């Protein structure tokens, strides 16, 4: 499978865009789902979700000129996106004016979606209970990144990532056991 970096960009209105813009758009399109999931994980209202998405994309685009092409785009993007998301969440917590995110923040619910909604709600509650570092480690792990990749993005050692994930697994088991009782 071709890596996102190898993908040929095909945005509309390409004639009016520079090569940088075209390349950036193509890369972001490849990772757009991940960016949206990060926004979902770090916000609690649909309005904040949209704001954070724009903030991340704006920050990525502003920094794109300094992106070292010899390094992996995903690592660079994960770093910028997580840094912006953590900062955004902290600023929102200071304001304490969040409105609860409804379950249909991304899509209207249908009866057959109910179990999925519940599962996503569980996932959200779990993420809400984590500190910023563990949340970032977990999100990168859920996306299938290796310990090495996660360590590079967060700026901690690989063994640290392993320890944190093991601790999260233990904590998950304890949560499940407690809820079953």
């Amino acid at each position, binding site marked *: 499978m071709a890596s996102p970096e190898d993908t040929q960009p095909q945005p509309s209105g390409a004639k009016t865009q520079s090569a940088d813009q075209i390349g950036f758009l193509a890369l972001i399109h490849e990772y757009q789902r991940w960016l949206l999931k990060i926004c979902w994980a770090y916000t609690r209202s649909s309005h904040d979700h949209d704001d954070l998405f724009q903030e991340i994309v*704006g920050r990525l685009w502003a*920094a794109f000129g300094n992106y070292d092409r010899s390094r992996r785009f995903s690592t660079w993007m994960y770093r910028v996106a997580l840094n912006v998301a953590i900062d955004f969440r902290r600023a929102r917590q200071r304001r304490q004016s969040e409105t609860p995110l409804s379950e249909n923040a991304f899509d209207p619910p249908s009866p057959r979606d109910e179990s999925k909604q519940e599962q996503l709600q569980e996932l959200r509650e779990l993420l809400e209970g984590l500190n910023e570092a563990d949340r970032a480690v*977990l999100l990168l792990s*859920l996306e299938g990144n290796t310990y090495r990749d996660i360590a590079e993005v967060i700026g901690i050692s690989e*063994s640290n990532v392993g320890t944190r994930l093991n601790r999260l697994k233990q904590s998950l088991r304890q949560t499940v056991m407690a809820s079953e009782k």
Partner: protein
Amino acid sequence: MQLEELQQQWQRLDEKLERTLNMDSEILRLTVTRPARQRMNRSAIWPALDVAFCLAILLVTAPFLGRHWPNWSLVGPTVVVIMAAIALMIDSIRQLIRVSEINWSGSVVDIQSSLSRLHMAKIRQFKWVILLSPLVWICGLIVGLQWLMDWAPEPHFILDKLSPAYVAGNYAFGVLFIVFGHAIVRFLAARFGNRGWWQRALADISGSSMKKTTEELERWASLNDKVSNTAA
């Protein structure tokens, strides 16, 4: 629940995202077609405005000080205003440097530590701006009114026009506010209930925001140590 189950739930989010993808593609296109330089860093807006404001104050007060030297009833308040403007300007410039040094593509630990330090600097600045504001206000009022008087066809000495009790009372309040400002802000915050600004002001002046941010900074800075210790 296992990590693998969570991973499946995480992947299921993809299905829910389909609808927003088209809308966000438009946001993407608009974002990149806007020149990047136009997006000023929000963290830099207030310090930049503070620097501009302080520069304007200094440009006005420096010649004023020269004109009224050595009339100590005017030189005193002018020196207070100048010192406050210089202190605010230096602190704001330091904040601007900190903002410019933040490289968002740095590791999460590095950037979040830098952001916590920047936040601490902002809290410290806000606290002192509030505590010093009554004293600087009365000094600024005297300087400002005298500056206006100087332009009048028949200049007057402003302190002859203001009641000595009013001036002395304001000076005393300004000095006492530095000492008892915390208690006054706490009283006002209680009186105005749950208004966000008061709560934040109280937290910043009382030091609880600073304590929280310091803990946050320590948490990021010692991330590796803590887990190593736990693992050991």
